[in-house]
Every structure is written in C-alpha cells, then in structure tokens.
C-alpha cells in the first residue's frame, strides 16, 4: 500500500499473483481507524513462504545456464525474494535444471530429503519434465517426477529466464492457494 497501511478486505487479487501485500488483501480484516488487522495465521505463513523462496544452487545441464542468468543481475530473481542457497539445509525450493541421469537420480533424492519442510520442486525444461529427446537413452531418467514429487513444470528447451520466473510466480500462486484452502 502506498500509504504504508495494510490493505482492506475485498481488494482484487492481481491476476499475476506478483503483488506482496496485495496477495493478502482478500484475507486481511482491518479494523476501521485502528492499527489492528486480523488474518489467518496459515495464510500469513504461506504468504511469508512464497515471498522468500530460496532455491538450492544446483544445476544439471544447459538449463542451468538459463537458471544462472535468472538469478543474476539482468533478470534479478532477488526482486521476488528468490535467493540462492548453497546447501539443501537452507533451501526450500529445488530447481531441477537439466537432464536427470540414473546416476544422478539417487543424489537428487538425497538432496531433496535433506531439505527441510516445507519444500517445493520446480522441474525446469523438457529433460527434467519428461526426458524429452533423451527419454529412451539408456542412462536417462524419463522425467524427474520418477524420483521426487514435482510442483511446477516449466516448459522449454531450455526455458528462458522469463519462463523460469513465470514458473516461480506459478509456484507462489500455488502456495497462496494452499493457504486459502487451509491445506
């Protein structure tokens, strides 16, 4: 809010889900004239979670180049609270950026298991989504969802930084939706 106050009930949610306080608009009950607002705690927590998604620094193939560009200055995922973490213990998003080989698959599972709850997975690019043209290669897993559960699939070969950011926004929307239904 421009005047620094909390939003009032009934303000429209932005279509792209990119707002910060605006996402809370439908949930917040503001007492007229006072400095008190009410919001369900799980909604507040989900809002906090989606506003500071910290992915693990983990790249597998050429998609990782686009992912690095996404996190670097030009596309600057930091604008949306996305900051890379160098260890799975501190990360809550795992971006699978590239071809998953059967030799890497157990390592991916280990990294995923090392991340603390709550955690989400973005499958970036055709290889991680389905194996794509490596699908029937003897060394490749046909989709990372055979190894770990996936929240968001980003299409492309490789996806552009804009596409990966759109995937991040989709994940943010998903987290907020989970807050709305109290899941």
């Amino acid at each position, binding site marked *: 809010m421009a005047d620094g106050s909390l939003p009032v009930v009934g303000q429209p949610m932005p279509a792209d889900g990119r707002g910060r306080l605006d996402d809370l608009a439908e949930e917040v009950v503001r007492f007229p004239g006072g400095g008190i607002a009410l919001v369900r705690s799980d909604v507040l927590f989900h809002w906090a979670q989606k506003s500071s998604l910290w992915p693990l620094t983990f790249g597998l193939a050429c998609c990782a180049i686009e992912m690095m560009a996404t996190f670097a200055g030009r596309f600057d995922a930091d604008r949306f609270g996305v900051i890379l973490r160098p260890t799975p213990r501190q990360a809550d998003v795992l971006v699978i950026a590239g071809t998953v080989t*059967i030799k890497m698959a157990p390592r991916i599972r280990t990294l995923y298991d090392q991340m603390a709850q709550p955690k989400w997975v973005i499958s970036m690019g055709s290889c991680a989504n389905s194996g794509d043209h490596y699908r029937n290669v003897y*060394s490749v897993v*046909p989709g990372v969802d*055979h190894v770990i559960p996936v929240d968001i699939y980003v299409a492309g070969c490789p996806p552009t930084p804009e596409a990966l950011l759109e995937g991040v926004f989709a994940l943010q929307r998903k987290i907020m939706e989970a807050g709305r239904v109290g899941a």
Partner: protein
Amino acid sequence: MSAPDLTRFGASPAPIGIAIAPGVLLEALRHVRDAHGYRYYVLATAIERETGFEIVHAVRRHDPEDTLFVRVHVGKDAPEVDSAAFVYAGAEWHEREIFDLFGVRFRGHPDPRRILMPDEYPGHPLRKDFAMDTPWGYRP
C-alpha cells in the same frame, strides 16, 4: 631455436591403421611408442562387428605429424584384451569406458571398474543386443 612452422598445422597426412594380433598388442604399442615416436595417446574406442569387438588405440606423434590407429580384434564370447594402461597411462579411463559400454575386459588393468554407468547397472548399453526396454531403476 627456430620459429615453429605453422604451415604444417592442419596438413596432417591421412591416419594409418594397423591390425595387430591380440597376443602382441602391448609389444606393438611399445614399439611404435619407443621406436617411431608415437608418444601421445589420443583415445581408445571400440566397434562391435559381427564376429566380435574391435578395440582401436589412437596414438599420435608430432615429428612427422600423424596419427596411428592400432586395431585389435577380440571374439564375442567373454571378450578380453591386454590393457594398454601401463604403456600409455592415458589409456586407463578410455579402457574403463569401453568396459562400461561394451563389456570388453582389459587384462591387467589397474582399476577395472565402470566409469560412467552406476556400478550395479545391468549390461553394457552400447552392445547391439542391449535391449532398450531393460527394466531398471527409474523406467516407468
């Protein structure tokens, strides 16, 4: 010391291939290395033929500049050939890759493990009889 003759780069003669009996492979490699100056190990590769496997060692020299392909043929059943790793140290990982993908064993190899595929992987995937629908691990 005179400047190197840059005109010679890219003008190498066509590579020569020689077929060697498996029993004298190491002797032949030592000979071309010591007596003919093929001191640089380029690669080893393998080809599956109808009657067996052909192992090809590519070695190179720079004066005069050319590449020599030393080929050795082994049968299809339990293929095994002498390891060149103690003649050319660079051969070690190439031979591991050939073992990994073709299942050819190298006698006297210092570290005869797979190099790319997981240790427990079934079969050798570049063999022509390797079935692509091999049920393993993460296949749907």
